[in-house]
């Protein structure tokens, strides 16, 4: 058997692959579920914080800034480990799935708040002034004039950041969640063959590569044209 045959036997073993394909598919579905939950809740919370921050209530803003900084500074895996291994000490036992969801949700919330906020503050003062000079309230000026422009500006950086954070669903394997990497890892130790990892890798590429390409497309196309 040549080296090439041995390589194929190890990483593209058809017998192992067909046996564990259902597991990998199950893991893929769980990854999609987890990713969707993180994206929806994280982006919504981030926007809510940015809107709250725009009201300029100082004590509240300092709190928001602190929370955002905290979740930007901590490695996501540290947050997951804290929630999963730490909270049981006070009687709360979130599952690995919930721990990962909450952790990455907070991380995405923090990063997206920062991006939304930068978007809102980058809208020229004249836009606020024009809106207020026609009698629009602060809320109307924010929602009808400033936010639509700010959101458009934030879409490319937000997309890239969302992809980077959502990829972190693989961290869930560390806390025993049967998503793609978790399924692949246990399949490798059960079959003593790395082919499931190959399948897992392909599954991640199928999920995330289109998003990355889409993000690149947005970056070139969405530059603001005045």
């Amino acid at each position, binding site marked *: 058997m040549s080296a090439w045959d041995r390589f194929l036997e190890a990483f593209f073993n058809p017998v192992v692959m067909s046996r564990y394909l259902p597991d990998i598919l199950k893991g893929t579905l769980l990854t999609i579920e987890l990713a969707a939950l993180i994206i929806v809740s994280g982006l919504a919370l981030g926007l809510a914080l940015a809107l709250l921050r725009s009201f300029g209530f100082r004590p509240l803003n300092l709190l928001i800034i602190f929370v955002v900084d905290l979740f930007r500074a901590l*490695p996501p895996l540290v947050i997951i480990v804290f929630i999963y291994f730490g909270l049981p000490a006070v009687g709360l036992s979130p599952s690995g799935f919930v721990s990962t969801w909450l952790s990455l949700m907070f991380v995405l919330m923090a990063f997206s708040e920062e991006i939304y906020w930068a978007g809102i503050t980058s809208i020229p003062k004249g836009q606020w002034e024009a809106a207020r000079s026609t009698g629009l309230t602060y809320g109307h000026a924010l929602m009808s004039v400033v936010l639509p422009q700010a959101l458009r500006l934030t879409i490319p950086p937000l997309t890239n950041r969302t992809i980077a954070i959502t990829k972190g669903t693989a961290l869930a394997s560390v806390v025993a969640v049967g998503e793609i990497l978790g399924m692949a890892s246990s399949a490798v130790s059960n079959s003593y063959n790395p082919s499931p990892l190959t399948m897992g890798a392909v599954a991640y590429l199928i999920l995330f590569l289109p998003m990355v390409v889409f993000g690149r497309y947005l970056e070139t196309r969405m530059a603001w044209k005045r």
Partner: protein
Amino acid sequence: MLETFFNLEIARSAWPIILAGLGNTVLLSLVVVPLGLTGGLGLAMLASVRKPWVRYPLMAWVDFFRAFPPLVLLIFLFAGLPFAGLELGGFACVCIAFFLNTGAYYGEILRAGIESVPSGQTEAARSTGLGRVQTMLFVVLPQAVRNVLHDLLSNTLEVVKLTALGSVVAMPELLFQARQAQSLTYNPTPIVLAAVIYFVMLWPLVRLLSRLENRALAVRV
């Protein structure tokens, strides 16, 4: 609550273990950040050859690693390669994974930076007799780095945070050590301690970044 999450006695006894972990995290960062930057610089230099047969494979390479979760890459190297007869050990795996993953990110950032420098700069430099490499090194790169400084620092923050992945392949860095201490003491204080250390270590960089971020977006308007 305080007893559980910030037990001073446990913190004191776990401190030497945690401190060793912090040392390793710093060392690891000092290895992988330059490694990723080198990889990225290589990619960006290649990309400045504006030929389609260089450009598109390069783009595919970068997008491949941007789509690939770094943990999956690490596990593949650590648990997969031994089956092909390559037993690399945790440290080598981390280095390779970071070189590939963060190199792709740094490469994309530096490429954008280099493209943001007007071609007139290159023309002016070449007209004074500077060579291709000298032009890149002394004229283009300094401006490129300044233009994308925010993104470079932001990525560096992510790279330092990513070193926590080392714990998965048994590298004795901060998170790994904290988890060791936690399983010895049956108390989450060591993990809280590690989190506090990460925060104190990285907070200044986070603050600096959000200051730069406001300016970065403002420029795009």
